């Protein structure tokens, strides 16, 4: 301090008004008690942003808050004093920083609108990776950070795992949940950490978050300011940390912290949704396996019925010297032994947790297996099933067992669509002009309107009434996605539907 310099003390409102209602007093004013604004406009608690707090005793009577009392607050002597003292850093609202004009407020409103859009976007789908990307992109924009990363607690033993892009490279980072890093500290103590300079902060004493320099070495970057906020689930357990690093403004403000806390909630919701979906899909796959098992059990029974009858006729034919019967029964037995051998592929397709195991195989062979398997079922329903096996798919890479299950589901759905009258189901294979492997299943059944088409891949949505649980098509989509493929649906009410599976050929990738 230089001699002659006048010290200006920034007064809180209770000091300015000398109302003896400051912190710790008997009749403490709400502005003195509100700790959420501590530091705003360099004040203690809400002492220099009191117009944002409802029930203050500025005029000796409890006042309404800013929204209702805006005119008298704006003309208040203390308000104008604080505004003059803070200059460009003046904080008008609890959230808004540096608001002196409408454009600043508009900027804040646009951040809030962006947060609402994120909420809508993130919760319109179940893709956790995409949700995290959307949230971190938005967090970087709103907090003016160079980088935002979400770390989730995973693994056994649990650790923090995150990934982000750096100079075109995908960087994966893991941190233990302990005090040896800012992120670990944040998760361990369930506390926010806001560091202006991580390297300077490392000089602080014990109990303070310490930046792990290995992070910068590993990622070949230089971290300066860092804001880390814990991500908590609905039971308030820490499930991860969201960070914002290297603020373009030099340091992260309380507003930035507020926003990041809201984004942490969005991440938590997206994670919980994703985990619920995983559990649902697993249960759905088990039930779907049960359905397929029931269909295959029917086939096995029919095969066993024919084999038992054949064996008896052969034995009795030899006893009675009826060689014509022996020959006929032998041929029937031979056919059914072949059918039984084919069933081994069906049984291998049962594993609900099976990862993609692509192999070079003949797609037409797999399609032919399924069509032959379901021919009996088609006949009992008076449905004609035909396969038109195209060229160019004799050697392509796919997982035969997963595609097998997809086809069973799609064809059984097609059969159901043909009820109650007789119909035709056609299965085609081939390649698109772009080289994708293509399988279509078409029926001339009842078809779907646009609204039904939108719902068919959603779990537990079914238009088929009792007896159907709406789990086949979501499972099919899941299995096709494992191939990096997609499904296109065309349908017209009253005329029928066509489902097309399109899978990029993995041949070149292997």
């Amino acid at each position, binding site marked *: 301090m230089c001699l002659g310099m006048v010290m200006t003390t920034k007064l809180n409102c209770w000091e300015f008004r000398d109302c003896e209602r400051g912190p710790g007093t008997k009749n403490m004013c709400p502005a003195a008690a509100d700790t959420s604004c501590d530091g705003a406009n360099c004040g203690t608690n809400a002492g220099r942003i009191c117009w944002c707090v409802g029930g203050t005793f500025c005029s000796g009577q409890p006042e309404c808050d800013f929204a209702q009392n805006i005119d008298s607050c704006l003309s208040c002597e203390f308000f104008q004093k604080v505004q003059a003292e803070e200059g460009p850093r003046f904080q008008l609202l609890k959230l808004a920083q540096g608001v002196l004009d409408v454009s600043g407020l508009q900027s804040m409103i646009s951040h809030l609108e962006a947060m609402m859009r994120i909420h809508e976007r993130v919760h319109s789908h179940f893709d956790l990776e995409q949700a995290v990307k959307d949230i971190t992109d938005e967090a970087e924009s709103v907090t003016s950070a160079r980088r935002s990363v979400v770390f989730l607690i995973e693994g056994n033993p649990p650790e923090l795992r995150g990934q982000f892009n750096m100079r075109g490279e995908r960087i994966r980072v893991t941190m233990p949940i302990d005090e040896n890093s800012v992120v670990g500290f944040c998760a361990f103590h369930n506390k926010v950490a806001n560091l202006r300079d991580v390297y300077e902060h490392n000089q602080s004493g014990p109990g303070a978050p310490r930046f792990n320099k290995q992070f910068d070495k590993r990622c070949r970057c230089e971290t300066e300011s860092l804001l880390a906020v814990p991500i908590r689930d609905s039971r308030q357990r820490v499930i991860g940390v969201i960070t914002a690093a290297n603020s373009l403004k030099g340091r992260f403000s309380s507003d930035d912290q507020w926003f990041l806390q809201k984004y942490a909630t969005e991440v938590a919701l997206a994670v919980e949704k994703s985990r619920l979906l995983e559990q649902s899909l697993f249960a759905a796959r088990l039930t779907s396996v*049960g*359905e397929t098992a*029931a*269909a295959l059990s*029917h086939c096995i*029974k*029919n095969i*066993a*019925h*024919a*084999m*038992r*009858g*054949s064996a*008896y*006729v052969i034995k*009795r*034919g030899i006893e*009675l010297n*009826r060689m014509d*019967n022996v020959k*006929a*029964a032998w041929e*029937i037995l031979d*056919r*059914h032994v072949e059918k039984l051998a084919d069933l081994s592929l069906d049984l291998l397709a049962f594993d609900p947790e099976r990862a993609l195991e692509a192999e070079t195989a003949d797609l037409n062979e797999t399609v032919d297996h399924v069509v032959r398997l379901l021919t*009996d079922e088609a*006949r*009992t*329903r*008076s449905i004609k099933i035909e396969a038109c096996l195209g060229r160019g798919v004799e050697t392509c890479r796919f997982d035969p067992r997963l595609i097998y299950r997809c086809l069973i589901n799609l064809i*059984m759905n097609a059969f*159901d669509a043909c009820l109650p009258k*007789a119909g035709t189901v056609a299965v085609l294979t081939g390649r698109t002009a772009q080289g994708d492997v293509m399988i279509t299943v078409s029926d001339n059944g009842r078809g779907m309107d646009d609204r039904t088409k939108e719902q068919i891949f959603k779990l537990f949505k079914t238009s088929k009434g*009792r*007896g*159907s649980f709406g789990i086949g098509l979501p499972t099919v989509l899941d299995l096709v996605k494992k191939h990096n493929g997609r499904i296109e649906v065309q349908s017209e009410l009253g005329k029928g539907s066509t489902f097309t599976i399109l899978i990029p050929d993995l041949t070149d990738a292997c």
Partner: protein
Amino acid sequence: MSESKGKILVVEDSADEANLIKMILEPEGYEVAVASNGEEGLKKVASNRPDLIVLDVMMPELDGFTMCSRLRESPEHSGTPVILLTGVAKRISNSKYPLDGVLRADAEQYLEKPVKPEELLETVARLLK
């Protein structure tokens, strides 16, 4: 030529299964006719007047339950014994053939696939006694 022990009509849409039942019954002295669906079965009941009918449940056009019900409604054939062959007792995705439908069909006997030929022969003999 020995006298036939009885005329049996087998109504079964699978040619292999129909032939097998025929080859099981004929050597034991039964005269066997075959129909491949319920409609054809009803016509052959009227023309052949069988002593017993072996009827598969899951068939196109007219299933075994319905054919059995129609037989029971006909004064001429309501007394003809029927053996129903059922392949599927419960289906999650297709409730068209529930087990209680078998019981409602009022057949003398139902046998669940895979059927033991000896059991089929024993049942036929018992019902034709």
